[in-house]
């Protein structure tokens, strides 16, 4: 595959533009063929029921039925089969117990103890400002009356991050040292990162049962890829000279690893730990659907009572927890360099830490002795912003409600319905060919094959119509996200003030659990595909805006200056210099935007998006593993299709 050499960029300025036009023409051509095919043959070639045509002997290959049988087998054998008695049950019982134990330890410490230890640890590792942030987070947990929930979530995150690291770091080390292991793990990690969080939940539910064990495993699995990837990268990038020197001194491989590679890779590995923690924090919330307790459950319960304010409070608590964990681990990763160390002489610092630990132990002792106010955060010390948020929500709804409903109806009639009809009613083979053709235009033969195969697999899983319905929604949501994100990103890149206003907003949007804004979008747009689309756009916008902004700001100052001095207008500067130079960031932004939209497919089903997402939700709620798994895998297929296309577009 052709790679662009950095040096050729200015010379090829007409190249990419020409290619964009070529691709656009190709895309329009494919669309025209699809439309003609639809006009001539619509409804005549629905995806065939392959499995009905098979002789009885082979009928068992139908994926949905296969999963359903597996499900029935597991239910019947969970407490008799050695696979479970000596295998999965160990894990699930061990993990479930670990969560209970950590939670009990936190309860035993009592809230003053936890606050003291947490703040002191943050102060020791990351300095005064982060310690204040941690203190603020704890204060919010307590003041909102969510102390116990926050502790459960902390226990869950701790457990699952520990498993993720226990599994991920050794694999990462292996992958960093051996090319073969690297090649084996890469596709698996790709698959894991494309798979939407919800789709993880069903198999976990099956193997590890309901509640905290399954939640811990699902969270760990979701959070493991960055641990593996970044560890591998860190180990591989260790200075070759250092490795050679040690080897020539006669070190054993074990010594080489523990004495040279790991210490040198430490900072990068800690960055992986940080990423793992962040992913775990977002997944723990989603895992509330399979009975995980804690803050996620608080959001979920509030939503079931349509109490947006309460859900928002719990959401803010999660955001604060995520930010606090992020800052502390990031500081731990950056070593002493970037952090401001606690002031004062060493001895003084030790004294503070010692006294704090003693006080915390005292709190634990007091709790054991039965001091009443240590048993839980005092109820008198709580305030609630829920009423305020609910009022604001009602206000917005009253203000733009009718307008939004009209917009929703128009969007359905003009865009969503026609596109869905086009995809579901066109001959299935034409849709497969169209996907392959677009793949070919973007990335050559391989992408064409992957694209065609992925979309064909959706049909073979038995969910063609759902798949096309979902695809139509994802396409529209991605278009909206990318265009809005580009506009906002360009504006932010041009105005420092706007960028400064946006940054904390984007931070919060990225960590706020998407459950929180589901009910407000329903209140605005009614039930159906439009509110789901709105939620997906809200969720996927921040990374797009961020990448576009970074990309344009990252353009070399020299090129920009040269263009300005030659009298380019701002528009010319943008379209002729900045956007072409930021091309790889922009394409990454498109890719990220699409993948994030896809991750919202299942969550969108909670507000009426239907299709594949509903298959997953329904399968989970009604114990129908077949429907749930085939729908989940079909989402992965669509993800593969869109990811490969946008990625190869970025490469060629």
């Amino acid at each position, binding site marked *: 595959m052709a790679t662009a050499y950095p040096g050729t960029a200015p010379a090829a300025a007409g190249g990419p533009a020409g290619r964009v036009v070529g691709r656009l023409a190709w895309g329009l051509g494919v669309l025209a063929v699809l439309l003609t095919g639809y006009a001539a043959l619509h409804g005549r070639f629905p995806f065939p029921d392959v499995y009905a045509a098979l002789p009885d002997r082979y009928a068992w290959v139908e994926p949905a039925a296969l999963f359903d049988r597996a499900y029935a087998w597991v239910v019947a054998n969970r407490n008799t089969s050695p696979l479970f008695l000596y295998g999965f049950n160990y894990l699930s019982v061990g993990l479930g117990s670990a969560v209970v134990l950590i939670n009990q330890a936190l309860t035993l410490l009592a809230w003053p103890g936890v606050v003291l230890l947490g703040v002191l640890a943050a102060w020791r590792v990351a300095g005064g400002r982060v310690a204040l942030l941690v203190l603020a987070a704890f204060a919010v947990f307590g003041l909102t009356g969510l102390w116990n929930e926050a502790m459960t979530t902390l226990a869950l995150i701790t457990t699952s991050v520990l498993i993720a690291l226990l599994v991920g770091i050794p694999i990462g080390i292996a992958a960093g040292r051996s090319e073969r292991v690297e090649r084996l793990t890469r596709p698996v990690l790709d698959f894991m990162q494309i798979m939407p969080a919800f789709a993880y939940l069903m198999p976990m539910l099956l193997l590890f049962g309901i509640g905290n064990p399954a939640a811990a495993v699902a969270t760990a699995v979701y959070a493991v890829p960055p641990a593996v990837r970044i560890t591998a990268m860190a180990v591989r990038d260790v200075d070759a000279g250092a490795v050679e020197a040690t080897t020539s001194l006669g070190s054993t491989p074990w010594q080489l690893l523990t004495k040279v590679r790991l210490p040198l890779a430490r900072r990068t590995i800690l960055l992986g730990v940080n990423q793992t923690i962040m992913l775990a924090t977002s997944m723990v919330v989603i895992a509330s659907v399979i009975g995980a307790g804690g803050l996620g459950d608080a959001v979920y319960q509030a939503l079931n009572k349509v109490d947006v304010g309460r859900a928002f409070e719990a959401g803010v608590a999660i955001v604060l927890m995520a930010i606090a964990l992020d800052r502390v681990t990031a500081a731990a990763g950056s070593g002493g360099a970037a952090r401001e160390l606690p002031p004062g002489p060493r001895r003084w610092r030790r004294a503070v830490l010692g006294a704090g630990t003693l006080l915390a132990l005292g709190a634990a002792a007091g709790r054991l002795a039965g001091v009443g106010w240590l048993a839980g955060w005092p109820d008198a010390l709580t305030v609630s912003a829920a009423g305020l948020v609910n009022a604001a929500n009602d206000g917005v709804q009253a203000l733009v409600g009718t307008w939004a409903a009209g917009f929703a109806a128009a969007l359905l009639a003009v865009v969503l319905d026609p596109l869905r009809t086009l995809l579901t009613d066109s001959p299935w083979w034409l849709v497969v060919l169209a996907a392959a053709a677009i793949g070919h235009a973007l990335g050559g033969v391989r992408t064409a094959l992957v694209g065609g195969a992925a979309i064909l697999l959706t049909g073979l899983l038995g969910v063609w119509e759902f798949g096309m319905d979902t695809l139509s929604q994802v396409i529209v949501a991605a278009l909206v996200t990318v265009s809005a994100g580009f506009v906002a990103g360009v504006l932010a890149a041009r105005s420092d003030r706007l960028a400064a206003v946006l940054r904390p907003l984007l931070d919060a949007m990225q960590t706020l659990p998407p459950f929180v804004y589901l009910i407000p979008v329903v209140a605005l747009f009614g039930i159906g595909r439009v509110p789901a689309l709105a939620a997906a756009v809200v969720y996927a916008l921040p990374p797009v805006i961020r990448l576009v902004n970074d990309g344009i700001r990252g353009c070399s100052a020299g090129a920009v200056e040269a263009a300005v001095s030659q009298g380019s207008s701002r528009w010319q500067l943008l379209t002729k210099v900045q956007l072409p130079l930021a091309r790889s960031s922009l394409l990454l932004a498109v890719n990220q935007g699409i993948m994030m939209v896809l991750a919202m497919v299942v969550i969108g089903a909670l507000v*009426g998006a239907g299709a594949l997402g509903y298959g997953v939700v329904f399968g989970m*709620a009604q114990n129908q593993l077949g429907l749930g798994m085939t729908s989940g895998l079909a989402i992965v297929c669509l993800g593969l299709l869109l990811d490969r296309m946008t990625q190869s577009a970025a490469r060629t």
Partner: protein
Amino acid sequence: MGTRSARPARPTRPAARRPRGTGLLRTVVLTLVLVLATSCAVRTTSVLRDPDTVRIALNAWVGYEADAAVVGYLLEHELGYQVQLVQIDEQPAWQALDQGAVDVILENWGHEDLMRTYGPEGNGTVVDGGPTGNVGQIGWYLPRYLVEEYPGIDTPEGLREHADVFRTPESGDRGQFLAGAPGFVTSDQGLINHFDLPFEIVFAGSEAAQLTEVRNRYERGDPVLFYSQDPSWVQNDLDLVRVRFPEWTQGCDTDPEDVSCDYPRYELNKVFRAGFARDGGAAYELIRDWTWSNADQNAVAQLIADDRLDPEDAAARWVAEHPDVWRPWIPEEAR
């Protein structure tokens, strides 16, 4: 013990420079091996559990929440237990009982098939806990103002005639029937097929989303037809009429594609984890003896849903006002 090695003895290093990671790793591996070797087969039910904690499955409707609030309040304040509410869908809740992840489902709607799988005739991990005293009715509901505007719309014939009233952009040229949460028992498509109703089911995907939509439409006086059940908080809140399908008879709903009758009336019951029924002690006895009327449940549900009271405060208020109702539930020795 002396080690025989061809290699020269390693030079002793200062203690601080010993590879701490190795030692830790070995300890962890050894412990794991020990644990694996000493314990043998592990059943899911052996997960660590605090005997003083009762874990109640919490299904997402307010009637259930009222049950859980009152039972939980009494367990905590009269018997000194800790109560953990585990939010979970109806059917996975049975699985959770089977796996020992929760102790009791307080309000079960039917589910004979699950009872066959997990009950005494199946793998024996759950037992029926007797009726709660509440009677439940699932059905198709619409606002009363629609019946006043279109008399007879609350019958299958009336719905067929006025289906266009319920059209939305999402349902196209058919009427919209708003389905409930994905976990609920449904025979809606069967009803649509049998009575030849020109309706499209729109899946709200969650009860919260469905109720938000229903409330919005109700406030605007718009038409809406939806799946709901009584007792439920919307029933207290909005003035609704249930569509009159022919009454349920045995076997009229066996074919999910062709259902000729309304939903049955459910005698709601409790379902226990078998282990909890065996050694749940006073907590088990309290829940076993707990029964109350629809009016009792609605009183608590209303405090939670309309007055926006915290479930625990709602329970406290009800408990303070109705000692005669709950006194008999408390086990003899704890009274």
